[in-house]
């Protein structure tokens, strides 16, 4: 077995084993969760090793019959993001410590589906065939939707229903788009079994009919855009993030979002090779601006802090779309932004869990004097919000700066001006919401003590330090990996 084959197994097996353990051991025991968390480190190591291979100049590793798995630089970046958040999530999952909110059967269900969810996301980024990629992404909808109503309440049922319905319908449209591309391929050169393998599709793209690929891309963008929560297909997002357990929220807002953007980028590369002009770019710019608009203004009105993070996700989805539509420099900035956003959002959702437990309310108006009640949680939360609105010394400042520079370089000064103004709106409203939560008189009955011990707090300094490091410098390894991806994008 070649080295890369073992790597593929190491990547995918930990989450599948995790699901298997959770199925076999009943009732749920804490050691299953711990074992699961430590085994998931192997997946992270495998992802890093794929990244190192890409940096060292290996174009892509393939695996299995018909080369159904394939990992190039772009897949490697996504693997690293997904496995990093997955590992963090599994270490901070309910059920590892003393837990009072969920009973053992709920914990077992959680561990089964969260692992399947992670496995489906990893499969989506290493699938060679874009049809298989679709199958995996659709599966993520089902697995994650089943975790949202872990505790049955009217709200959680409502959120999960909206999520699974909008998600399934949206993703079905992405499949229609995939079918249309395959249709075009068949019309050109007959039925070929591996026509939907990405490299084959990419190589054939210049010959495909641009009119058909345009229609196909519209379907694909709407479909995967629904999964990514790009406006106007974002309506499920605040509900689902607001009602899901925090650890699922962390995975959905960072990893799943990244996977959906990855699917859009994969298809954009194919469509750009086929359709002349800026067709895909312009669509992405339009949806990006709309997302930033809706995201920023919703933060003004929002009353629930988890939903506030969801609207921030809509805004950042818009920024990343904008970047993808702004040529090579923009794509570089968008991917950097994706890394930063993943780090920031995963940290925020774990902090939110502590806030929710302490104040017993999801509403911003009930959370007062957080800095006095929980100095560490409050401090980290403030740092996260400052990072999300793009202040230095955090990574999002650098990637947003790069993004706007790309926009001006591509001669879109007006668009960039409007986007900057909208970011200013988000900036002001985030600061005022944050102020309300950090200061003020502590509500009665709330005692001053951190909810989480150091064991749970320490892991959150990992994403924070990633944000700070990326804000102060661009490590050569990341630049090298992004440059490999730029070769794929602009080949």
């Amino acid at each position, binding site marked *: 077995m070649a080295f890369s084959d073992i790597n593929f197994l190491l990547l995918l097996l930990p989450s599948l084993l995790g699901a298997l353990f959770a199925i076999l051991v009943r009732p749920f025991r804490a050691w299953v969760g711990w074992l699961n968390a430590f085994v998931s480190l192997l997946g992270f190591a495998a992802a890093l090793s794929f990244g190192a291979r890409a940096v060292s100049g290996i174009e892509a590793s393939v695996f299995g019959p018909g080369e159904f798995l394939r990992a190039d630089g772009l897949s490697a970046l996504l693997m690293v993001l997904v496995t990093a958040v997955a590992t963090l999530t599994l270490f901070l999952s309910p059920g590892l410590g003393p837990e009072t909110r969920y009973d053992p059967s709920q914990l077992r269900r959680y561990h089964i589906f969260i692992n399947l969810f992670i496995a489906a996301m990893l499969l989506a980024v290493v699938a060679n065939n874009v049809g298989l990629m679709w199958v995996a992404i659709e599966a993520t909808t089902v697995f994650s939707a089943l975790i949202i*109503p872990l505790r049955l309440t009217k709200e959680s049922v409502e959120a999960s229903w909206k999520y699974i319905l909008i998600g399934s319908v949206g993703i079905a449209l992405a499949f229609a788009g995939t079918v249309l591309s395959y249709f075009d391929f068949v019309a050109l050169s007959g039925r070929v079994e591996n026509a939907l393998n990405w490299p084959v599709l990419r190589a054939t793209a210049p010959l495909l009919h641009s009119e058909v690929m345009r229609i196909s891309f519209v379907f694909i963008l709407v479909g995967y855009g629904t999964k990514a929560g790009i406006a106007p297909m974002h309506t499920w997002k605040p509900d689902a993030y607001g009602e899901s357990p925090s650890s699922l929220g962390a995975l959905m807002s960072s990893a799943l979002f990244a996977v959906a953007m990855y699917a859009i980028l994969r298809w954009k590369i194919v469509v750009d090779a086929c359709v002349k002009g800026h067709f895909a770019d312009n669509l992405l710019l339009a949806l990006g601006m709309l997302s930033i608009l809706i995201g920023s203004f919703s933060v003004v009105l929002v009353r629930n802090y988890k939903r506030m993070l969801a609207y921030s996700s809509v805004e950042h989805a818009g920024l990343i779309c904008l970047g993808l539509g702004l040529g090579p420099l923009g794509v570089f900035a968008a991917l950097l932004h994706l890394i930063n956003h993943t780090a920031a959002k995963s940290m925020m959702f774990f902090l939110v869990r502590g806030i929710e437990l302490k104040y017993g309310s999801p509403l911003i108006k009930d959370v007062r004097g957080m800095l006095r009640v929980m100095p560490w949680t409050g401090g980290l939360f403030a740092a996260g919000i400052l990072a999300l609105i793009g202040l230095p010394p955090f990574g999002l400042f650098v990637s947003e700066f790069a993004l706007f520079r790309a926009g001006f370089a591509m001669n879109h000064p007006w668009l960039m001006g409007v986007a900057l103004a909208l970011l200013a709106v988000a900036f002001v409203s985030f600061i005022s919401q944050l102020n309300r939560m950090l200061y003020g008189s502590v509500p009665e009955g709330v005692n001053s003590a951190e909810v989480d011990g150091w064991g749970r707090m320490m892991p959150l300094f990992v994403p924070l330090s990633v944000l700070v490091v990326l804000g102060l410098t661009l490590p050569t390894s990341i630049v090298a990996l992004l440059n490999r991806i730029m070769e794929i994008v602009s080949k």
Partner: protein
Amino acid sequence: MNTDLFAQLSALGSSLALLAGIALLWRRSLDSYVQAFKWQSLVLAAMFLMVGYFGRDPELYAMAVFFFLLKVIVIPRYLRRLQQRVGAERESQPYVNIATSLIISGLLVLLAYAVTRPLVAVSRLPTRGALPLAMGLIFVGLFVVVTRRKALTQVVGFLVLENGIALLAMLGTYGIPLIIELGVFLDVLMAFLAMQVFVYHIHGTFESMDVEQLNRLKH
């Protein structure tokens, strides 16, 4: 001669499938929704056989069998059981009334013809004439999901949308590669089963399936 017959049969089958989709817009009882879906799936399964025969692709026979088992036998049975468990609520007040719905579905089919013009121009398959009907079915399915108020009728709308995509793949490419198709079947089944769980949850927590009541989450 054979090609003519093939073209006519595919147009006929697609029209029937589209008609069954539009039938959802004027029927109200859940039972008729399930019936319409079942008949539509039956037509599609028969079309898989037909395309397999004329297109000389035995893989499609296998597809026809899977399709039949999943969408004519298994899913309608689950839908019935679901309907018995939660009670036969009628889709009494959709967001858009029947007359308007029918006019809109006519417009959607027109739109489908406009959208698929490049597809029909590119393809050389005898089935190309029916492509707009498949696209029309996709749009109608989407419209049903958006305008129905009962959780169960929304599920049927989703299934009809899926049928539309299957029809598009069948007419445009004589079926996508089998391995992907199987993955899609698995996904549809999982999504359906998950939705079924949620319909029970909605019924259990709200004591109704009216998604109108799902309005607690704002701001």
